[in-house]
C-alpha cells in the first residue's frame, strides 16, 4: 500500500506496526479519529499504551510497546516543529512513560510518510529500524551493538548516508539501565523515563530515517504568513540574544543567586563554586558553535568540547541547565570542563544526564555517610568533585557490575538495597530523579515534582519563577498554577513542538492554535486544547493507579529530606517546608483537579473528560475517587502566565 493515504492535513498518512519478535511490518492508514481526539504525540501514545499494554506487563518485556510519534505539527512550518515523542510503560516508574527530543528525527519520519511507529515484541538479534521513504526494514545491528551512542551515529551516517537522521542507544540501554536515554543529532536526547532501556530490551539499537516527501497542510499561505510574522516579531525580543548566546545554561547562575540550585545531592541550595560551571564559563571555555533543532530560530543548543588533563578531548552538545546543575553543583564539580566531560560520558553511555546526575549524587552522599565504601566500589572512592571517581562509578552502573547494579535501577531501587535511612535522601518521586531545582524553598516546584505524571520532572510544570513572584514562604494557590502549567506545557509534548518560544519569547497559545488550524483544518480552539491535555493527564493517572494498585496519594510524596531538613547554607538558610505544608499542597492540588483526598480521580471528573472507561477500570480495583461534596471544579487550573526573566 502506498503511503500518504489519509485525507487529514498535517498528517503523513501511514502508521507502522512492527513486531520485533517475528519481524513482521504492517502499514495502515493513520487513525485520524485518534489523532483528532488525542492530538497525536504524547496524547496518542497515552491512549495506545493504556489500551494495549497489559497491566502486569514487564516494562522490559515483550508485551510493552515502544511508540514513536511526532504529532501533527512536527515537521511543519511552525516555530521549532522539531520534536518527536517516544512512549512506553516506563521501566523507571512502572507507569506511562513518555519523553521527547528535538533535532530532526521527528520531521524526517513525517517526510518519509509516517505519523507513528508502534513496535512490540523482542527481536531475537540486535537490529535497527531502517526507513527510507517506502522502504521499511529491520536490519542487522550486530556491528553497532556495544557502541557508545555518540560513537555510533557518525558510523551509521557513514554507512547509510549523511542525510539519514539517526537515533541510537548506548551500552546503558543495551544493559537495561532503567534511566537510559535515546540520543540523536550528536547530543539531543529523549532522556526521561528510560525509553532507551525499553529500546535496549527490544534489541533495537537504532533508528535511521530519510524522507523526501512533503507534508500537505490545510492552508499553507496563511500558515506561512502567520508563522513568518511570529518569527520576525520575536527576532528582536529581549530574551532572544541571551538565549542564543547561552541557551538554558543561562539559568545556572540565576538558580544559584536565587538559592534553588541542587548542591551535593540536594543537601543545600547554594553553590560556592558557581562561576566555574556557569553559562558564562561554558561559552568562554567550551563553546564551538550554536546548534538549533529543525525550524527553530533560537538555537539554544551549544556544541562544545571538553578538555581535561589526562582525558581524551570530547565533543558534545551541552551541558544544558539540567545537566549543568545535576552533574555540576550536585556533584560538587568546580570546572565546566568537568561537567562537560561527565555530560559526554553519560551521553555516550546512553544514560539520562538528569537521572544519571541524581544517581551519582546519591551514591556520593552514600559514600560521604559511609553507607557504601571502597569495598563496594572495586577499591575506588566516590568523592564530591572527583571526575575520576564519577567516571569509574558510571562504568560500574552502565555495565551493572557489583554495587553498580543497585544503582542501574535508579535512586529509589538503590535506596531499597542500601537501606539505613538512605531513602530519605534518594531525591526522586515515583522512581524518577528530580530535576535541577531544590523545592524546599520553592513549594510550587516541589509540588510539580510530586504530582508530575511521569515521576519527578520539571518540564510538565516549571513553577520556579512563579514561586519567586508569588512568594516562597506561602503555599496557598500554588496548586492551581501547577495544574494550569501541567495542562499547557504538556500541550507542547502532544503537538511535538518546542515550548521555549512560548515560555521565553511570549508567543501566545492562541497563536499556536491558529497555526494548528492552518495546518490541520480542524475546528479547534485553545480551550479544547487545554481540556484535551487535562484528559490525557487523567488517563495517565488512571494508568499509573491500575499498574501500581494503591491510592494515588501514596505515590506523590517526595523523599523525607524535603521536610525533615531545613536548607543549611546560603541565602535560603533556615528555610524549608513542613510535612503539614506538603500535605496541604496535595489536598489543594487534588481538590483543584477534582480528585479525592486519596489522590484518586473521581467518576464525575473522568466522565466530564469522556474517560468513563477509565473510571470503570479504576473502580474495579477499588481506586475510583470518592464522590466530591462540592462537585467538580469548573475550571481546573487557573490561567497564569509565568515570566521567565
Amino acid at each position, binding site marked *: 500500500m502506498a503511503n500518504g493515504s489519509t485525507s487529514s492535513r498535517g498528517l503523513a498518512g501511514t502508521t507502522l506496526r512492527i513486531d520485533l519478535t517475528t519481524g513482521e511490518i504492517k502499514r495502515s492508514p493513520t487513525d485520524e479519529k485518534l489523532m483528532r481526539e488525542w492530538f497525536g504525540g504524547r496524547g496518542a501514545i497515552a491512549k495506545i499504551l493504556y489500551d494495549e499494554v497489559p497491566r502486569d506487563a514487564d516494562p522490559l518485556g515483550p508485551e510493552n510497546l515502544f511508540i514513536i510519534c511526532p504529532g501533527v505539527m512536527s*515537521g511543519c*512550518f511552525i516555530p521549532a516543529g522539531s520534536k518527536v515523542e517516544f512512549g512506553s510503560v516506563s521501566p523507571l516508574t512502572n507507569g506511562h512513560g513518555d519523553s521527547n527530543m528535538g533535532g530532526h528525527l521527528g520531521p524526517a519520519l513525517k517526510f518519509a510518510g509516517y505519523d507513528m511507529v508502534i513496535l512490540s515484541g523482542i527481536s531475537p538479534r540486535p537490529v535497527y529500524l531502517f526507513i527510507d521513504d517506502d522502504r521499511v526494514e529491520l536490519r542487522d545491528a550486530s556491528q553497532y551493538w556495544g557502541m557508545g551512542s*555518540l560513537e555510533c551515529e557518525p558510523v551509521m551516517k557513514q554507512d547509510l548516508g549523511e542525510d539519514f537522521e539517526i537515533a541510537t542507544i548506548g551500552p546503558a540501554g543495551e544493559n537495561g539501565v532503567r534511566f537510559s536515554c535515546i540520543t540523536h543529532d550528536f547530543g539531543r536526547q529523549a532522556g526521561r523515563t528510560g525509553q532507551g532501556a525499553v529500546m535496549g530490551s527490544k534489541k533495537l539499537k537504532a533508528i535511521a530515517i530519510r524522507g*523526501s*516527501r512533503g507534508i500537505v497542510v490545510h492552508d*499553507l499561505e496563511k500558515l*506561512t504568513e502567520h508563522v*513568518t510574522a511570529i518569527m520576525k516579531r520575536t527576532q528582536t525580543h529581549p530574551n532572544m540574544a541571551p538565549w542564543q548566546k547561552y541557551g538554558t545554561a543561562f539559568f545556572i547562575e540565576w538558580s544559584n543567586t536565587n538559592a534553588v540550585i541542587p548542591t551535593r545531592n540536594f543537601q543545600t541550595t547554594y553553590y560556592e563554586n558557581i562561576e566555574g560551571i556557569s553559562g558564562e564559563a561554558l561559552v568562554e571555555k567550551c563553546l564551538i558553535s550554536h546548534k*538549533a533543532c529543525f525550524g527553530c530560530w533560537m538555537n539554544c543548543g551549544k556544541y562544545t568540547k571538553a578538555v581535561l588533563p589526562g582525558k581524551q578531548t570530547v*565533543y558534545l552538545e551541552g551541558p544544558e541547565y539540567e545537566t549543568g546543575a545535576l552533574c555540576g553543583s550536585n556533584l560538587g564539580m568546580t570546572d565546566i570542563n568537568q561537567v562537560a566531560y561527565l555530560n559526554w560520558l553519560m551521553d555516550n553511555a546512553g544514560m539520562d544526564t538528569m537521572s544519571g546526575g541524581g544517581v551519582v549524587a546519591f551514591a556520593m552522599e552514600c559514600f560521604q555517610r559511609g553507607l557504601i565504601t571502597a569495598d563496594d566500589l572495586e577499591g575506588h572512592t566516590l568523592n564530591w568533585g572527583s571526575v575520576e571517581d564519577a567516571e569509574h562509578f558510571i562504568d560500574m552502573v552502565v555495565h551493572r557490575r557489583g554495587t553498580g547494579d543497585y544503582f542501574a535501577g535508579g535512586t529509589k531501587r538503590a535506596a531499597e538495597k542500601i537501606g539505613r535511612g538512605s531513602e530519605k535522601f534518594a531525591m526522586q518521586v515515583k522512581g524518577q530523579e528530580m530535576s535541577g531545582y531544590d523545592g524546599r524553598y520553592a513549594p510550587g516546584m516541589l509540588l510539580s515534582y510530586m504530582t508530575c505524571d511521569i515521576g519527578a520532572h520539571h518540564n510538565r510544570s516549571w513553577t520556579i519563577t512563579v514561586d519567586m513572584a508569588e512568594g516562597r514562604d506561602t503555599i496557598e494557590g500554588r496548586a492551581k498554577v501547577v495544574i494550569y502549567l501541567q495542562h499547557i506545557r504538556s500541550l507542547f509534548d502532544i503537538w511535538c513542538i518546542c515550548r521555549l518560544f512560548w515560555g521565553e519569547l511570549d508567543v501566545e497559545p492562541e497563536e499556536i492554535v491558529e497555526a494548528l488550524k492552518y495546518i490541520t483544518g480542524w475546528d479547534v480552539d485553545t480551550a479544547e486544547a487545554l481540556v484535551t491535555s487535562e484528559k490525557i493527564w487523567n488517563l495517565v493517572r488512571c494508568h499509573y493507579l491500575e499498574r501500581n494498585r494503591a491510592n494515588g496519594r501514596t505515590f506523590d510524596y517526595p523523599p523525607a529530606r524535603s521536610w525533615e531538613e531545613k536548607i543549611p547554607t546560603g541565602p535560603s538558610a533556615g528555610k524549608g517546608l513542613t510535612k503539614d505544608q506538603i500535605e496541604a499542597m496535595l489536598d489543594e492540588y487534588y481538590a483543584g483537579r477534582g480528585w479525592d483526598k486519596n489522590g484518586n480521580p473521581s467518576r464525575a471528573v473522568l466522565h466530564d473528560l469522556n474517560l468513563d472507561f477509565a473510571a470503570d477500570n479504576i473502580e474495579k480495583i477499588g481506586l475510583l475517587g470518592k464522590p466530591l461534596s462540592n462537585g467538580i471544579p469548573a475550571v481546573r487550573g487557573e490561567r497564569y502566565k509565568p515570566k521567565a526573566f
Partner: protein
Amino acid sequence: MEIKRLKVSPGKCSGCRLCLQICAISHHHETNPKKARLKIEARFPQPGKYKPRVCVQCGKCMEVCPEGAISRRDDGAYIVLTEQCTNCGECIPVCKPDVIFQHRDIGHVLICDNCFKCVELCNTGALTMQTRLVKETK
C-alpha cells in the same frame, strides 16, 4: 552590471533549516527540505559546525547544459527554463558548491533563483544578500 547573490558567513549557521523550509514552500508550496535549492552541510562530531552551501552564481551550469535550458537574468541569477530542461543532470557534477538538486516528483533540476526568502528568516546572520558590481560578460 550589478548582481545579487547569497553570502555565507562561516560559523554563524546553527543548522535550523528554516532556509530549506521556506525555499521549498516558496517554490513548491510544501514543507519539504528535499525540494530546497540550498543545503546545510552538518560537520559533526568534528569540527562541530554547520556550513550552508549556496549558489555562487558562477554560471558553470549554464556552460555545460546541453539543452540551453539555463539562462542568466539581469540580477545575475541563473534560471532553469523548466520547459527545456530534460533533467539529464549534466550540470550537477560541475557545480562546485554542489547545490543543484533533483527530486523524483519534479521533472527538472532545481537551482537557486535568488529570491532571498531564506535571508529573511535567517536569524543568525549566516545567510545575507550581497550586491556587487561586475564587468559585463558575453
